[in-house]
């Protein structure tokens, strides 16, 4: 039986780990190689590196950091940030990534998902989606699986895709976009709640339920984790993996403690 995965995420800016709240107020959180090695030691199932400097300033991706982390890491490594073309993905994979996350560029040009999946395979093509509740709609209170009826025949989800670290609201429906990306070849969805990112209010369970129910690929829940109960709720809602960042970087807990909590909550984990 497949174990639920706990995935520490390192946001990288200028070769350092950073963390903010809703992608802003970034603060230093250490050296990527040291952090990645420590999390593997604690029992992390995978590591995600996101180059957060890549998109807003239009800079390239963190190849050197990937190479340095790969040298010490014997668990899977996913890298995202600034992937605009197939060759960007190739460069990250050559440096030692096992999977590549695509976000903003795929929203502008969905065929990028198909190009990367055809070249490198679906299992290494991760669609990263930043989801925000549409303005004027309650971000927390649940409705029927998170959908709103806009006309007698039309349902849309309560979330829209945001890009460029949340500065651009696209109006694109999150659930529709995830479904479309998987038909183009995305093999996994990294689903971040922009509303919850860095807040420690728990994952957006309605969002996870809506997306995991609409696609057949694994979904990684992201944004808002503070306690193992939050992780249990996300996994019960249909996520295959949970992403954690702030609480680990700040030393509030460890991967081992979180996994112990999952195990006590009846979730199968690798121990």
């Amino acid at each position, binding site marked *: 039986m497949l174990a639920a995965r706990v995935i520490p995420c390192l946001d990288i800016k200028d070769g350092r780990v950073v963390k903010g709240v809703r992608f802003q107020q970034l603060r230093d959180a250490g050296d990527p190689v040291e952090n990645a090695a420590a999390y593997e030691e604690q029992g992390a199932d995978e590591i995600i590196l996101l180059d957060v400097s890549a998109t807003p300033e239009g800079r390239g991706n963190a190849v050197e950091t990937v190479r340095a982390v790969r*040298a010490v890491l*014997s668990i899977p490594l996913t890298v995202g940030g600034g992937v605009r073309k197939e060759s960007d993905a190739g460069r990250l994979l050559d440096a030692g990534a096992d999977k590549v996350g695509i976000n903003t560029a795929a929203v502008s040009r969905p065929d990028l998902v198909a190009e990367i999946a055809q070249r490198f395979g679906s*299992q*290494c093509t991760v669609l990263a989606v930043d989801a925000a509740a549409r303005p004027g709609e309650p971000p927390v209170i649940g409705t029927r699986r998170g959908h709103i009826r806009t006309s007698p025949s039309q349902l849309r989800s309560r979330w829209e895709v945001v890009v460029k670290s949340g500065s651009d609201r696209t109006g694109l429906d999150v659930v529709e976009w995830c479904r479309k990306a998987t038909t183009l070849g995305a093999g996994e969805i990294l689903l971040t709640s922009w509303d919850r990112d860095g807040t420690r209010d728990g994952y957006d369970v309605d969002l996870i339920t809506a997306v995991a129910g609409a696609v057949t690929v694994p979904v990684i829940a992201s944004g808002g984790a503070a306690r193992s109960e939050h992780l249990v709720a996300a996994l019960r809602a249909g996520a295959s993996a949970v992403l954690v960042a702030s609480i680990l970087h700040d030393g509030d807990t460890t991967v081992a403690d979180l996994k112990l909590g999952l195990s006590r909550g009846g979730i199968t984990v*690798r121990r």
Partner: protein
Amino acid sequence: MRQVVVIPTGTANTASVIAAFKRLDAEPVLAADPQAVEGAERVVLPGVGAFAPAIDRIDQLGMRDALTSRIQGGQPTLAICLGMQLLCTSSEESPDSIGLGIVPEIVTRFTAELRVPQLGWNMVEPDGSTSLEPGWAYFANSYKVPRLPEDWAGATTDYGGSFVSAMERGAVLACQFHPELSGAWGSNLLRRWLWKTA
């Protein structure tokens, strides 16, 4: 220092395989031609991506015969993920392509009720007399070898039913999982394979 010849199957993840062997103080080198594969003490056939482009790449490099004869002869060879599937006759993924045909099985897709690809850690359970140990291994696959062929030992894993997670014959080891990404358990497996003799 033990040299390991890695076949460049053209797609991703070769860097992870090379990094894993370097951590074990082996010397991984990329194979340039079929002679390198014939003469090598140890060969790794990695593979991610689709069946057709990977087997086409092996044919382009002229390595089909060299690979087949060393695997038939039990020379130390490690096939990883798609590399293991290439040992079979063919695959549902690319019905028009012909595999190495060393293992008389057809590679099949996981059933529709499951989340596919299988991405994550699953339990490897050794079957028969093998050097494999039980443990958690990292998988990233949509297709699998359905049953253990005769004359091979190995291991199975459960994902909506049992599938073959490893096959072993002599010093030939084929893994559906990624030992290079399977933590300390995977490193130990690679280390044992490095010291195997034909």
